[in-house]
């Protein structure tokens, strides 16, 4: 399967933050969960991809096209949703639709009307008076109505209630299933990402910590309760992250891919319990480490 998006060695330096070097690969047709704590660099990465700022180094390609040299062709493939998009200048919902549809030859009025009905947004409504959640829904409508081959959703569920979130993911799954569409979803709603993303990348402090198939990543890690005389030395070992410590008793996140079982034994740790992890546990433990 060829890749929809490839990022190699991306760097961007700010005075208080450095992104990268970052590598990221999104296969065509995948739903890719891009997760990480606040300020990790998720939005910065997406911004660089869309030309909102110039990377200091690295290469970004979308469907084999360079994101700078072929920026128009790249953006003709990408539907983008973010709570930071501001449509207020268009006045009414219908105006925003009229403006955006002019840029996309594949715009589908019927599909747009279906989405408007589904999200209960009227064309004659004033954008300024829409609730925050409704503004996100409008961004989704504008991105989905032309059936882009690649969808980038930056925190799309912020401000959405449970029903709207369910509708959003149903729509996403349906569209991905029907049309070989690639979706990148950067979200804090980890339960949703775990359910829908078939691949994910975990970014922290501008670096990619983990990347792979969601199911594989979850299977690869286990939460182990153990007793150890040297818990501080334990956490310095590759593949072991100390999640919690209470005297000699500690809970560690163990990467089964590394030789962590042996490390545990080597430091005299006696496992007392072992359980699979959820994406949320994995996320929180790695983010705190």
């Amino acid at each position, binding site marked *: 399967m060829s890749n929809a998006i490839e990022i190699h060695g991306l760097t961007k330096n700010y005075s208080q933050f450095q992104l990268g070097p970052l590598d990221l690969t999104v296969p065509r047709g995948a739903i890719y969960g891009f997760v990480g704590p606040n300020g990790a660099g998720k939005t910065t990465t997406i911004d660089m991809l869309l030309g909102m700022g110039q990377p200091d180094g690295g290469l970004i390609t979308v469907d084999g096209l360079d994101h700078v040299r072929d920026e128009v062709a790249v953006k003709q493939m990408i539907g983008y949703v973010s709570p930071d998009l501001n449509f207020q200048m268009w006045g009414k919902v219908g105006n925003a639709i009229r403006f955006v549809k002019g840029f996309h030859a594949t715009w589908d*009025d019927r599909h747009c009307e279906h989405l408007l009905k589904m999200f209960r947004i*009227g*064309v004659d409504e004033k954008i300024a008076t829409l609730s925050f959640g409704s503004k996100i829904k409008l961004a989704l409508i504008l991105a989905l109505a032309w059936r882009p081959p690649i969808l980038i959703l930056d925190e799309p569920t912020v401000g959405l209630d449970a029903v709207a979130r369910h509708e959003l993911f149903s729509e996403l799954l349906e569209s991905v299933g029907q049309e070989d569409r690639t979706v990148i979803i950067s979200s804090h709603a980890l339960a949703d990402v775990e359910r829908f993303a078939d691949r994910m990348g975990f970014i922290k402090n501008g670096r990619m910590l983990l990347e792979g198939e969601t199911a594989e990543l979850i299977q690869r890690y286990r939460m182990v309760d153990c007793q150890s005389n040297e818990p501080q030395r334990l956490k310095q070992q590759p593949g072991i992250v100390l999640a919690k410590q209470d005297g000699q008793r500690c809970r560690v996140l163990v990467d089964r891919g590394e030789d962590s079982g042996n490390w545990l034994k080597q430091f005299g740790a006696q496992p007392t319990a072992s359980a699979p992890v959820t994406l949320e546990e994995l996320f929180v433990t790695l983010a705190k480490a």
Partner: protein
Amino acid sequence: MQPNILLLKDFYRRWWWAYLLGFLALAGVGAGYAVSKSHSILPIGGGAFLSAILLASDLNFRTNARTLLSLPVRLTEIGRTYWLICVLYSALFVTGATALGSMIAALLGAKHALDTGELFRMLYLTGAVNAIMLLTLTYLPHRQPENTTEQLTGGFAGMVWGLGVGASFSAPMFWPRSAQSQQSITGILLLAGVISAIAAWHRCTVMLVNRTAPAAGTTSKKASSYSLSTGGFSGLRWLLVRTFGQSICFSLLMQFVLHLTMRLMGAPINSATMPTLILFPVLFISVLMLLPNMTALRHLRSLPLSAKQLALLFLALPAVSIMGIFLTTPLYMLFDREFFTHFFKLPLLVFGIGMFCLFLSLMLNIGVKWGMIGVVLVVPVITMLAMLRQVLHISWDITTSPYTAFLGLVLLLVAYCWNLHAIRSRSKIYLPHFHLMGRNQFGG
């Protein structure tokens, strides 16, 4: 009435730079008066910029009003502290700064320092204008109107606000010459000011409470239409046509009001006042047309437009909106040839477009604050230059000179290159500075 000291400190700490610039400009005007003894430069409406307009900028962020209301301070205390800032302190500041400039110029040998009577007149007229603007601010629409009364009140307040902001720039230029006209205008302003001051005293709490109300049209709205209209323009063509149409409407209204005001006041239309008269609609309409586009930069950049196309769009939009002014102007020739003759200065229009585009570039490259400062400062500077030309008997007319148009074209080119640089490499400009929520709340 005691103002809340913490709120006062907070307001002045955040807007010190505006007051500093205001002080310099007003002191300059005071010095200019001491040299020329021209009433037409006295900044009667300028106080609104340091009061109601700054306050409106504060309150435009819905969260500011919410933060204020959550403080352990009585609502009336908050409202009336802002009343004092807007009506009284700002008038005192304007008068004081102008008087100081005039005094310094007099010490340095100028002949006409402002006397006590003139200062007092400036104080109460500035206070009156400030009060009218503050009262208007309390009626400005902050959500979708629910009935016709709200719609009419909001629409009327919006119109008065727009004209008030405009008059703050240009009204002193057209202050009538005859004593009788001056007395009538002063009387009307004073009466309106006193009524507004009393009404605003009672309404300034409502202004805060209203701004914390949620936007209408959320979940419990009535059924809307989901059918899309087909046909007509879309995309960039739609945006340009819409901008053009809006600029024609604004221009018709603004030129009508300017024309009417000048005729009623018996104000002079000459080469000294015309630069302001021409540049003001250019700047005002362009600001109205273009600032909202800047808030949508993130959206515009995500569309299939190259950086070059986007940079060009930011030249095309002011050009199109100024074409609206250009095309509506001949309508006035039908009944006022003199007005038309003075207004229709193509070189100055080209310069205006170039200048405004450069302001946009300034905003994109070094920040909105500095761009706005440029807009606010350039009109008085050009006006001063035009007046100096008259005083010094220089025959070169900047409104008709081809050099003015050439300079405008150079400014356009510089603006394009600078826009392109910002669009490509300044990631800051895509942050949501203007709209309702901050990125930091949600991460990334």
